[in-house]
């Protein structure tokens, strides 16, 4: 599904993808951001071809927001323990990691670019999905089951805006989509494979710093809608609790939610007072809940229950 007539990555034959990655770079458009990626690694080429298949390619001579690369580390060690490093503008922001994890290194590096530099937005640590133009924010620390829930939601009638980073526009509080692969960890990989056989998952990467993980392609319709921002309407803090109820949704106080969100934002201090006010407006416009779940279907049903109820209150 092409976005505004631009060619997609999927339209490019595999050798051309690899050639661009080795050469001038592959310019991927993800919502408002363009990443120009270079890498000589076949695993990175395969990851991009499979999981960014529907993403539009930006102009070769166009403006790229972030110029990144995943490159093998040279030296004697490469024969014993091959490693790769992520490069932002030619410099490594963090330590090398095992070569088998190259696709994850790219995704984490891209997240780092947004968290460290995208101060044009208030960047919150949250997954975001939407029904039409109304967004559900799922903030939470790693390991709380937000990616699993996010993956399930986008195969159940919600559209993916982001799996990890919510870009809130400081001007009007709308969230801009940056649809990229969803990173599923541990048991989440199996849950999504079994429950949604149509989901396209990449290879499972073993023993990363976040455990075993696999990336899931964003649904084509979500990628096609990457130009459509959404208004935050619900904030739900998820928690996977294997010993708890199938799914329990409880209201949360807005004040506490605001403080917690601000503290977990990547750059709320950079935005200062205006950023805090904007965040307060966002929270004030949302119904806030906590969701603990052990059963993904029960969790989906509980969240579906939110949507019609909120539709009425917002019209009124």
């Amino acid at each position, binding site marked *: 599904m092409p976005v505004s007539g631009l060619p997609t990555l999927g339209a490019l034959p595999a050798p051309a993808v690899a050639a661009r990655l080795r050469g001038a770079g592959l310019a991927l458009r993800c919502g*408002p951001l*363009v990443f120009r990626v270079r890498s000589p690694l076949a695993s990175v080429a395969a990851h991009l071809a499979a999981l960014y298949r529907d993403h539009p390619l930006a*102009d070769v*001579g*166009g*403006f*790229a*927001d972030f*110029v990144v690369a995943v490159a093998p580390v040279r030296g004697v060690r490469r024969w014993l323990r091959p490693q790769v490093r992520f490069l932002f*503008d*030619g*410099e490594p922001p963090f*330590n*090398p990691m095992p070569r088998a994890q190259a696709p994850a290194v790219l995704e984490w590096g891209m997240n780092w670019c947004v968290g460290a*530099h*995208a*101060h*044009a937005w208030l960047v919150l640590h949250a997954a975001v999905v939407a029904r039409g133009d109304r967004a559900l924010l799922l903030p939470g620390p790693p390991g709380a089951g937000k990616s699993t829930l996010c993956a399930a939601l986008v195969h159940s009638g919600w559209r993916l805006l982001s799996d990890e980073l919510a870009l809130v526009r400081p001007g009007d509080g709308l969230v801009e989509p940056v649809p990229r692969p969803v990173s599923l960890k541990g048991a989440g990989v199996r849950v999504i494979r079994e429950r949604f056989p149509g989901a396209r998952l990449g290879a499972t990467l073993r023993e990363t710093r976040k455990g075993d993980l696999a990336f899931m392609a964003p649904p084509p319709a979500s990628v096609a809608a990457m130009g459509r921002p959404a208004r935050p309407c619900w904030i739900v803090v998820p928690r996977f609790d294997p010993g708890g109820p199938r799914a329990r949704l409880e209201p949360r106080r807005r004040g506490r939610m605001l403080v917690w969100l601000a503290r977990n934002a990547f750059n709320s*201090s*950079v*935005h*200062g007072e205006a950023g805090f006010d904007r965040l307060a407006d966002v929270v004030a416009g949302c119904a806030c809940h906590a969701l603990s779940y052990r059963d993904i279907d029960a969790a989906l049903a509980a969240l579906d229950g939110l949507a019609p109820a909120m539709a009425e209150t917002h019209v009124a």
Partner: protein
Amino acid sequence: MSGAASALAATPLVRALRSPEAAAGFRPAEWELAVRAGRRAALLAALAHRLARGPGLGTVPAGPRRHLEAALRLAGHQARALRHEAMVVRGALAPLGVEPVLLKGAAYVLGGLPPAPGRLVADLDLLLPRACLPEAERLLFRQGWLTAEPHPYDQRYYREWMHEIPPLRHARRGTLLDLHHALVPPTSRLGCDPGDVGARAVRAGEGFRVPAREDLLVHAALHRLGDGEHERALRDLWDLDRMVRAWLGEAGLREALEARAAAFRAERALAYALGAARAVFGTPLPEGLLARLEARGRCRLGARVVVPLLLRAADPARPPAWRGVGAARWLMYVRGHWTRMPLRLLIPHLLRKARRRPARAGAAA
């Protein structure tokens, strides 16, 4: 001038800084180079200010404009944080009876000096009389400032050979504080501290004490030539350009600068730094100043070697491993150390640093 100067002056970042109107004709690829170089050299917010005051940020295409606005936000945040730290530190040091003098970025931003618009400042640099330092450290410790270099060798290195004590880091806020007792290390070949910078300091901007104008200029030059860190060299030259341009019209700038350069025995450093700023940014200099500084500093070969090297090392448009930028940075790093201490101190120091590096890298991996 050299090829390095013309190459640097032709980069989109420098062209746009020199005349913001030139940016109107930029192609997307040129904007990309300007943003990347600006981010690397910590000059993106300065560029945003220049554009905002000139043709307006509205004339910039949406992609790069977002990065320019982001840089302005970041600079605003750093200035707020810096102001807060400076107030806390001033309060903590009140019992000393000597108010510290702000140096470098802190002086520019909180003193409202010409380089202030869009100036990024990560740490707070302060000058105090050497005799006050032990008491200042005790007072700051009570407020949560702990040493950021706990290794005994680093402690000894700073305390014996440097013009500052080891950096302090606030335990809760993570902010860095450098306490200086002089503007150059006592062993430096670049110059010596005449010991009267504090006495000549003035109040500026928000009421903080900052060095006198000539001292700010000499210090900026000494810092550029003596510091091993060249990623931000272009930013240091921009600071010099802003100050010289703003103060050029004032009577006696040339005489005052010559007198202070002599007091610091820093004619050579000042000549190199001003020469480099002129080569890149076209900085207008007082009539005859450079020639007199070069003569007094006996910069015969130096001007033809050090300035081009400095300019090559300063090029932020290229990754460090590109066309000699890495080599130039390494040479300038060695040169920085060379000028900082005599060989009998330098060689053991670099050997110790080299021996410790693999251990540290191993621990980090």
